[in-house]
């Protein structure tokens, strides 16, 4: 059987975090009642003119800088002409020849290896409204309802080169992009609300072939799982079609999450003739270099740089560093924990954040921003583990108390008030051990006859007698001495 190579390019619509729409003063807040955020500009009444939102441009510049793209000195808006009821002007204001961002690249972690995905462009445009076909009530029989609240919401469309070679790479790219746009504060990343939507252009070609096959575009994938499933299905379908002697026709397809299949939309012969031309309602956007320099100065340290710094400073593995830089909040939390616990305890901090805290957050369905324990509290707790004041199992109890006790409590206060300090004092432990050995001659005899199990049982007895407070390492040292 022939070997096939998969070729994928992705277009992502990223909803920008602005208060107002891209060309009007209507709110962009999610969830308003129909048409309560649609003013004269959004519904395209006669005589209105679009005025560009400065913050939307700033978001595009930030993104361009974050991916090392070229920021256009002069950028132009164009009309993309097509007819649909949720597009009241009969065209979408988008960009064609002179987008705000050209080029750029995004490093992507695919399993253990890093791959660089090249970007073609990123341009600003407005979103369309929403059409509702069901649940409209008796009066609206045979009608579709149009809600224009979303019309005019600012989007940044980010287009890659056809650089991805598997669904796994496509998902890794989408995840990295999702993390980046949240990291630099231009998008809330809420995929359920449609703030981050991917279109995947998928084609296949025989391995070794340099020309591209005919692509089909899977539209509007709003979860990473759907992206993976849709591409997997599409690739299988394209291979089967070609191996059965058929050919692929360029088409736009939809992914049906219920059946897990992709299917072609009814193709309209003129569907792709958008007749772009510069929008005479909008003057060219001039982005002076001072604005770009200012945006650069305001950009936070980017995920890739942060990752490398964490590896260098804390000696973390690439894997741990990539987990801890999944979001800006998480990376900041981790670093604040290290500050509180001491730099020499960075690795213990990483473990607590990635294991104990992550499990707790997952269980309570919370984000790191809503953590029930502050970084300072967690750092304080870790410092007491590191200096031997409490054992790890005691620390878990203190951790739980801190999580439910509010931000005012501290590990030190809980340890003191509940007497949880580890007993490491040799004198106290030796006395206890002597008592136990005297009371359990049977176990001592078993150990002396070579049964290691008996030793563990003796350690267990000490721990039990101290309600878990004895330092287990110290106990075992002392026991060995006594039994030697």
């Amino acid at each position, binding site marked *: 059987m022939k070997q096939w190579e998969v070729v994928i390019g992705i277009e992502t619509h990223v909803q920008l975090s*602005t*208060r*107002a729409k891209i060309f009007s*003063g209507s*709110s962009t807040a999610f969830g*308003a*009642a*129909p*048409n*309560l*955020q*649609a*003013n*004269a500009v959004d*519904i*395209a*009444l006669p*005589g*209105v003119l679009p*005025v*560009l*939102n*400065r*913050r*939307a*441009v700033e978001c595009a510049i930030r993104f361009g800088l974050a991916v090392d793209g070229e920021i256009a000195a*002069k950028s132009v808006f164009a*009309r993309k*002409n097509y*007819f*649909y*009821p949720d597009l009241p*002007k*009969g*065209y979408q204001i988008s960009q064609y020849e*002179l987008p705000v961002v050209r080029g750029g690249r995004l490093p992507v972690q695919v399993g253990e290896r890093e791959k660089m995905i090249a970007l073609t462009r990123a341009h600003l445009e407005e979103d369309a409204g929403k*059409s*509702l*076909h069901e649940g*409209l*009530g008796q*009066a*609206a029989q*045979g*009608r*579709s*309802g*149009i*809600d*224009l609240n979303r019309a005019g919401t600012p989007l940044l469309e980010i287009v890659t080169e056809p650089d991805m070679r598997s669904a796994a790479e496509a998902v890794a790219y989408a995840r990295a992009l999702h993390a980046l746009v949240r990291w630099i504060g231009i998008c809330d990343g809420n995929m359920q609300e449609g703030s981050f939507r991917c279109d995947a252009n998928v084609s296949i070609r025989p391995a070794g072939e340099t020309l591209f096959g005919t692509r089909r575009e899977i539209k509007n994938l709003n979860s990473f799982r759907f992206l993976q499933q849709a591409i997997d299905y599409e690739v299988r379908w394209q291979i089967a079609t070609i191996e059965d002697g058929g050919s692929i026709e360029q088409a736009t397809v939809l992914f049906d999450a219920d059946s897990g299949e992709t299917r072609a939309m*009814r193709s309209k012969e*003129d569907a792709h*003739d958008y*007749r772009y*031309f*510069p929008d*005479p309602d909008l*003057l*060219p956007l*001039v982005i002076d270099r001072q604005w770009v320099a200012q945006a650069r100065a305001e950009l936070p340290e980017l995920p890739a740089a942060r990752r490398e710094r964490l590896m260098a400073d804390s000696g973390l593995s690439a894997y741990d560093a990539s987990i801890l830089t999944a979001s800006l909040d998480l990376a900041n939390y981790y670093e604040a924990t290290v500050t509180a616990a001491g730099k020499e305890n960075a690795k213990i901090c990483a473990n607590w954040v990635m294991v104990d805290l992550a499990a707790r957050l997952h269980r309570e369905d919370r984000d790191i921003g809503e953590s029930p324990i502050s970084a300072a509290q967690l750092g304080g707790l870790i410092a007491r583990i590191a200096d031997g004041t409490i054992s790890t199992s005691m620390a878990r109890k203190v951790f739980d108390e801190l999580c439910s006790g509010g931000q005012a409590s501290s590990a030190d206060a809980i340890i003191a008030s509940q007497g949880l300090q580890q007993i490491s004092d040799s004198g106290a432990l030796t006395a206890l051990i002597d008592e136990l050995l005297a009371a359990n001659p049977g176990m001592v005899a078993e150990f002396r006859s070579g049964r290691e199990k008996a030793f563990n049982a003796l350690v267990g007895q000490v721990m039990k007698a101290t309600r878990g407070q004895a330092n287990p390492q110290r106990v075992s040292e002392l026991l060995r001495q006594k039994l030697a």
Partner: protein
Amino acid sequence: MAPSRGCGGKNFYDTLYGSLVYHLSDFVTMSLTLEQVHRIAHLARIEVDEAEARRTLGQLNEIFSLIETMQAVDTQGVEPMAHAQELAQRLRPDCVTENDQLALRAAFQAIAPEAEAGLYLVPKVIE
């Protein structure tokens, strides 16, 4: 097909001529066929009958010949203009300026052909 209505204040001939003139290079001969006029009219959702199409063909070809004359000018090294005025786009601060949206919606929907429960109603469209 009936001419579209209710699509805002944008003149459809804007779209028709705007895109035609902008895509001049698509028309190698600088002269349109009647078929091309019908196609562009269809894309712009404008109903033109045969007589109107012929008249439009004549008008468009006249515009083309005017442009052909202009194309004799040497524009080597001249940056294409995106707008007739040498001005830059003014920017608006990111502020919500619409307040009484209930009253606004009521006013807009009073002049809409059909509205129900806050939604504008249109003939059923489904892909």
